[in-house]
């Protein structure tokens, strides 16, 4: 046992003392943070205001579109202002806000939740629009004593899109086809990163808002009149959607007017919903309502499954590399003159397991650190998430399943390492193993939707998937039979895999040259 311990210590130190290991550990939170911050920055700051030109053959929709775009822009200003306000709200007000915004109380069905939030938001938005200027609105909030004194000035976001007045080269007296050809040519020459260049062109044919009397033409295969949205960036739909929304609204407004309908009334009717409540029979009397927090809870394990997969891959890879190194360097021969193959294997498994746990603790600490840093009055979601991670016991379940997965896969990778003389040989074996290992990644998004379904249940009972899938299901309170049964099956498999791996390891570790054929492997397993 002393020798296994010495080997474990060496394995641990060799892997933990490398720069790469710590870079990997640091990179994880850095990338996590960057993926939040950078995308936000890119979206808000780095994109220039894009220019587009409007060729309106109806001659009456310019104002409608400008208004629509302005509304979209004002919405963004409002969101930014709201963020600003909640970020600089005094603590005592913030706490009150959180109590009102308790995720445990918000019903889980997203539409309902959205609706109640929407109505509140809409009311605030109208108030904001009426106050003419965001600075004035913020000043109003500040005057009422809600905001802290010490805060930076509010910076209004730039408009995302700007309509340039009809340029000289565009003669609206030309035909639709000619105008369109002209625009197409101009756009084609545009450089997407140049602020002065054209980003898009919108061509509105005449009579677009005149409702077609018959669908016969369409039925015959003729295309109906369409608003044409030409753009050099086909991935950014914001402008197209804003224009479409503006035109849709205008079309509906006109139709209501022709039919003599009250627009306000229709809006009110449309926003009405039949209330539906989700209930969980497992919860206590009076608290059965499924909250948004419950829904978050159900999805949190996905993050853990992913973490499990990544960390497992990293450590078994280390195990594989070390084993192949020892084999190809023939260090193993010296080792085996000092310790038995069993001690060597035990030492390696234990040492690398400690590396894995070190990595996990560092990652989880980083994750919790980032969440804590972001948590606070202005981030109810993060606060709730943190609460779920820290208090639901998921962390312990995660660590337990990591151990099971590690023992299972490390046996497999140790055996692979021992039969291969070079990393290249090992990669040939790795291919199929990797494909098999991908399955839990592919299913992890679906399992929370149907945590006790056939797919989830069947996968749970396949030992190599047990840790992933059971972790995936953990928040949904899987049946006790599944928990106990798969755990027993899992640990039986661990014992079998390690035992078989030991057989292969002992035979293969001293062999040089070609990797064994499958027939030979089979013979080793039997003998």
């Amino acid at each position: 046992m002393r020798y296994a311990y010495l080997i474990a210590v060496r394995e641990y130190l060799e892997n933990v003392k490398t720069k790469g290991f710590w870079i990997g550990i640091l990179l994880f939170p850095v990338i996590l943070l960057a993926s939040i911050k950078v995308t936000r920055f890119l979206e808000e700051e780095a994109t220039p205001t894009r220019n587009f030109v409007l060729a309106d053959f109806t001659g009456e929709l310019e104002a409608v579109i400008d208004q629509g775009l302005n509304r979209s822009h004002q919405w963004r200003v409002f969101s930014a202002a709201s963020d600003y306000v909640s970020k600089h709200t005094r603590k005592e007000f913030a706490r009150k806000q959180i109590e009102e915004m308790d995720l445990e109380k918000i019903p889980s069905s997203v539409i309902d939740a959205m609706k109640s939030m929407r109505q509140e938001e809409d009311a605030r938005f109208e108030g904001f629009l009426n106050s003419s200027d965001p600075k004035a609105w913020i000043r109003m909030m500040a005057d009422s004593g809600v905001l802290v004194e010490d805060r930076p000035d509010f910076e209004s976001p730039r408009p995302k899109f700007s309509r340039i007045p009809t340029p000289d080269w565009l003669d609206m007296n030309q035909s639709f086809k000619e105008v369109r050809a002209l625009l197409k040519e101009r756009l084609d020459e545009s450089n997407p990163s140049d602020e002065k260049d054209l980003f898009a062109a919108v061509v509105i044919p005449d009579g677009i808002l005149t409702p077609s009397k018959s669908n016969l033409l369409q039925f015959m295969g003729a295309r109906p009149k369409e608003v044409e949205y030409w753009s050099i960036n086909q991935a950014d739909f914001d402008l197209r959607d804003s224009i479409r929304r503006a035109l849709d609204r205008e079309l509906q407004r006109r139709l209501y007017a022709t039919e003599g309908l009250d627009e306000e009334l229709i809006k009110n009717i449309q926003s009405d919903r039949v209330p539906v409540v989700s209930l969980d029979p497992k919860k206590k009397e009076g608290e059965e309502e499924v909250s948004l927090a419950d829904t978050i809870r159900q999805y949190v394990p996905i993050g853990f499954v992913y973490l499990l997969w990544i960390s497992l891959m990293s450590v078994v890879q280390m195990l594989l590399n070390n084993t192949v190194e020892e084999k190809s360097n023939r260090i193993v021969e010296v080792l085996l003159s000092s310790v038995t193959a069993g001690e060597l294997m035990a030492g390696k498994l234990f040492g690398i397991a400690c590396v894995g746990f070190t990595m996990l603790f560092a990652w989880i600490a980083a994750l919790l650190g980032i969440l804590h840093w972001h948590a606070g009055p202005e981030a109810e979601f993060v606060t709730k998430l943190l609460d779920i991670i820290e208090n639901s016991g998921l962390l312990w379940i995660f660590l337990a399943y990591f151990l099971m997965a590690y023992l299972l896969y490390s046996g497999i990778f140790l055996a692979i390492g021992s039969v291969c003389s070079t990393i290249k040989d090992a990669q040939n074996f790795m291919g199929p193993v990797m494909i098999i290992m991908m399955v839990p990644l592919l299913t992890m998004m679906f399992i929370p939707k149907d945590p006790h379904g056939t797919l989830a249940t069947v996968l749970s009972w396949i030992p190599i998937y047990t840790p992933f899938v059971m972790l995936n299901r953990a928040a949904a309170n899987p049946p006790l039979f599944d928990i106990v049964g798969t755990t027993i099956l899992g640990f039986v498999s661990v014992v079998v895999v390690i035992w078989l791996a030991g057989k292969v390891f002992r035979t293969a570790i001293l062999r040089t040259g070609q990797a064994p054929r499958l027939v030979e492997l089979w013979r080793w397993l039997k003998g």
Partner: protein
Amino acid sequence: MTDALILESVSKLYGDFQAVDSLSLRIPRGSVYGFLGPNGAGKTTTLRMILEIIRPTSGTISVLGAPSALQVRDRIGYLPEEKGLYKKMKAWSTIAYFASLKGMGRKAAKTRAFELLEQYGLGDFAESKTEALSKGMQQKVQVLASIAHKPEFVILDEPFSGLDPVNQEVMEEVIRDMSSAGATVLFSTHVMSHAERICDRFVLIAKGASLFDGTVDEAKALMPRRVLIESAGDLSSLEQLPFVKSVQEDLNQPGLHEYRLKPDADPHHLLDAAYEKGIRLTRFDRSEPSLHDIFVHMVGPEAREATVR
């Protein structure tokens, strides 16, 4: 005192391939024993069986009085044929690690590692990672790692291969040092001159079977005596002498002849005969057979046939 190592008709079969064929061997304690043989003769297989890394198919092995090397593994040192180290480990910690696997305490192992590196000229490289060392230095580190725990019985598989002449001498020094400290040394080699200089006894194996086991002198006595004679005159009368076994003229150097004498003949009689017959010699060279000659003589034809596994 018992022998350090006893092999009794040890055989090893790999499938149908007879790697070692009922080999018997006794190595007295304190001796330096050479283990000679061509490639594929079964040397490494035998050494691995001695160390219980692999098991013999049949026969018994006794190491330092124990039936298995595992029971006395802390008292054995082993340097395998193919050399390799953990690339990212420092020289001293490599040595200390292997010594601690042999039961040395951590602190003692560390002190010993620095001591050894200093002693064999690697003091300045103690803190270097092994991948930064030259191949010869790496090999030295490995040798030191295998003897750091002061083993009673050291098994070295091809310790000289890959070393430059200076380091080969250092290696010889290491072996002599260990021997004078009372350790038993068993080493395999191709380089016969080393074996000749430092072996008390040697065993020569080919195709897994022992061809010779004894001292260097005993081996030489088995060899036909060889005398080189160079002369411009007629040597035919010398070739008729009763104690001459055969004569061969060197094709590259006309006038140079190699005389092989019968085993108990005295080369001096050949010189006497030349003097009597008035033959003027420009060269008379009664060279002792070297271990190299013995090796080639005994296993030459087989070594050529032997296939490397």
